[in-house]
């Protein structure tokens, strides 16, 4: 079974975001693997362990920004591919999905393509669906569990976890799956894995290697502004007894249409 897991490097979630000259900036925050992608890597590793097969980490990014790929390798991915090209600077997710789809086709014969459900920097959650459409594969989003996977029969059954319901879905393989954090805690990289990852070599493909031109972006961000600061008003609920305070609190919450 061949599983491709798409990973992305993002600024450390502890970093402070600011708007600088009309663009979003994380300052000199270190890059990390997108935390959502760790769940996808965990799922890929478990599936490969159960079914036999290989896990290939695929990353689109600047050459040298290898944090996400190395993290996936340190967790246990068998190999990795990086796609990097100066022309990709500023690519939106439509363009990114076209590049990823081309890379997935070049790797070839994937049974499953896994993504984290979204990235913490752009937060769109669109890439898995867009990539699935381009690959003409079924798109299974918000998956928290693989009920069964049968690559020989070309079938997979997953549990989708949505806010108010779970949904069991049968699908054919190959398929594109986005994995939620309900899948289960991702493992930490092992020290052995860290050593392997730090010395791992992997191909870096340009757009020319993929045989494609730079796809045009459909979206631009002509203006980015800081979020409006909300004024917070604090009010002490008065009352002689806890019951009176509770009654007063409920009345205020109803008046503010919170309840």
């Amino acid at each position, binding site marked *: 079974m061949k599983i491709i897991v798409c990973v992305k490097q993002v600024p450390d979630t502890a970093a402070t975001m600011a708007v600088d000259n009309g663009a979003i900036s994380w300052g000199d925050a270190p890059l*990390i693997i997108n935390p959502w992608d760790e769940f996808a890597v965990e799922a890929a590793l478990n599936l490969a362990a159960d079914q036999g097969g290989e896990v290939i980490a695929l990353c689109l990014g600047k050459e040298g920004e*290898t944090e996400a790929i190395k993290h996936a390798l*340190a967790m246990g991915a068998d190999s990795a591919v990086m796609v990097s090209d100066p022309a990709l600077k500023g690519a939106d997710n439509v363009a990114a999905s076209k590049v990823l789809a081309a890379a997935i086709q070049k790797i070839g014969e994937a049974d499953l393509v896994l993504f984290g459900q979204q990235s913490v920097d752009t937060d769109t959650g669109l890439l898995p669906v867009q990539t699935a459409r381009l690959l003409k594969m079924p798109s299974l989003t918000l998956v928290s569990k693989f009920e069964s996977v049968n690559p020989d029969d070309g079938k997979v059954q997953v549990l989708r976890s949505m806010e108010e319901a779970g949904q069991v879905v049968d699908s054919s393989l190959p398929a594109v799956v986005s994995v939620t954090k309900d899948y289960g805690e991702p493992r*930490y*990289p092992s*020290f*052995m894995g*860290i050593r392997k*990852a*730090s010395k791992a070599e992997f191909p870096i493909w340009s757009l020319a290697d993929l045989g494609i031109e730079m796809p045009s972006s459909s979206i631009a961000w002509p203006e980015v502004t800081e979020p409006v600061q909300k004024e917070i008003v604090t009010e002490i609920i008065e009352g002689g007894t806890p019951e009176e305070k509770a009654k007063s609190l409920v009345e205020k919450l109803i008046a503010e249409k919170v309840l």
Partner: protein
Amino acid sequence: MDFGLSKEHQMVQRMVRDYAAKEVQPTIQEQDRVGGMAPFIIPRMAELGILGITIPVKYGGQGMDYISLGLVSEELEFIDTSLRVVISVHNGLTCLSLLQWGSEEQKEKYLVPLAKGEKIGCGAFTEPGAGSDFAHIQATAKKDGRDYILNGEKMWISLATAANFAVVTVRTDQKTDQAYQGLSTFLVDLGSPGITRGDIHGKLGVRAGSTGWINFQDVRVPAENLLGEEGEGFKVTMSAFDSGRYTVAAGATGLIRAALEASKSYAEERDAFGGKISDFQLIQAKIARMSLDYQAARLLYLKAGWLKNQGVRNTRETSAAKWYATDASFRAAAEAVQIHGAYGFSDEYPVERFMRNAKGAMIYEGSNEIQSLIQADYALDKRRDKKIRRELPPYDHQTWT
């Protein structure tokens, strides 16, 4: 000269930071209130390979270098000192002593299960009547056929009740010219008949850790368990301190960072006199000092780690790192309490725990007064490193992995 951490080091740092933040931080304040080490701590550290991080793979370890050991210590003490103490005692005093002084048979028998985390080790050196004056310890071992018979008491021993094995230094010769010449070190199975042990309660700090005493009453230890040769105990023990102090220094650096982060966070949200207290220069001075101390302490321990990687004696550098970092960590924690005002006096915030925890490291593994004397002796050319029979091996990526 390269001050940057390698990708490998950065990944080690992040892995341990994530582990401690996710799995220990949420409950550490409560564990500190309750007292004693949570039962999941040591098994999980073993499972993650932390207990054998700087031991060659062929001896059951993870084959990482000494810089990694320092980074792990810093990250663990950023969350709580009790975690780093496990590293100092199990990895520093026990595993690295075995790596340096152990025979191949001893390494196979003791180091392999310790590095795998299947067994836990501790260093039993201090006694009720001898700490800084270590040469005058009272515990004894007398030769009896092919065995030695140990008697005496060791106190302030971290992991005393959690460990399976102890590296124990005792007096084997009462008639030497100098007291330090009559000492020998043994590997002792703490399940041996004649050993009793217990925890010490009522500690100022490291309450989420394990500190205790071990009593030896006619404990029979095979002669093959001598670590080093008879009479080499002082050198073995001082070597153990070179390893242990390194982790103490790195850990204290993590505590400075914890105090700094907590202070920054509080100062940027606390209003007084119509502004945030982070805008006040007296608060800024305290935070600036913490930041300076963090940078200095970090450079000191990383230099000591770099020397260890090269296989160069580092008693002077490790002692300086330990002295500076532990003094600075107490100062940083105390100032963090001050910045937090009355809230700092409460265990609602972590800074009072940082302050209580920081004090111990100024006393154990050689008090800072002893570190001061060591530095004076080096500075005044009264002390030069003498060659010892076994040096701590340098880090060799080829043979360690």
